[in-house]
């Protein structure tokens, strides 16, 4: 039981922090305005030189293996609704770690998405 909770926590926390780190890396690159292939390639080359990017990818990899581990113990229809909490964690992390201003309307949207993801997986056949 404790092991399960740990894995679920790891999926939500490591997955969300990983994406937040990747976002931070892309924010240091700055807004991409030129979408020609050569320019995009230069953006990607710059992105992989930002340490936040690698920390983010490592955390996302940990979350992926935690997901595989959790799926080997529990049903997918239980695991995925729990991971819908990532949307709430993401909005909170965006506020705290990235200084984003999450308005009430955006919070309501995040809550509806959590609810919807849960319903999608409860409704599995």
């Amino acid at each position, binding site marked *: 039981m404790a092991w399960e909770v740990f894995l679920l926590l790891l999926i939500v926390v490591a997955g969300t922090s990983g994406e937040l780190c990747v976002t931070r890396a892309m924010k240091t690159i700055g807004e991409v305005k030129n979408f020609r292939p050569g320019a*995009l390639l230069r953006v990607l080359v710059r992105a992989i030189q930002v340490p936040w990017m690698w920390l983010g990818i490592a955390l996302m990899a940990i979350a992926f293996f935690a997901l595989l581990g959790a799926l080997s113990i529990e049903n997918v229809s239980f695991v995925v609704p729990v991971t819908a909490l990532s949307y709430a964690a*993401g909005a909170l*992390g*965006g506020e705290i770690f990235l200084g984003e201003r999450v308005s009430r309307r955006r919070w309501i*949207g995040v809550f509806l*998405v959590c609810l*919807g993801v849960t319903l*999608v997986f409860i*409704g599995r056949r």
Partner: protein
Amino acid sequence: MRTHSELHLKTYILIFFVVIFAPIGNVLLSKGMKSVGDSSLHSVSDLVAIALRVFTSPFIWLGIGFLLLFFVSYLLVLSWADYSFVQPASATSFGVVALLGHFALKEPISPTRWLGVIVICLGVLAVGNTHPRTTEQQ
């Protein structure tokens, strides 16, 4: 004002790519892995045989290609838009998966699941009504 709507437009376009590429990539990977089949894993030679079938499957390579396109689109949109905007908006892909499954693969979808898709879309609409970027750009 012009740059304002430009920002909205390119955010929506990139999120559109994100929610299209990710489900297509996943469907292709799952199709590829199912065609590899359920095989028993007893020895190293079994592993090599499975790996060989996986990496010679065109569906797997196509799936990886689409997932790469998804990740690049995701990175690009995050270079200007809020994470707390992009993450919930990307949940539209649950709806795309349901539609793909229903119309392309003829999968039955339960009413609860359709309800979930509708609730997700409402959430995405609420998030989509906020400004994509609330931080100062350096």
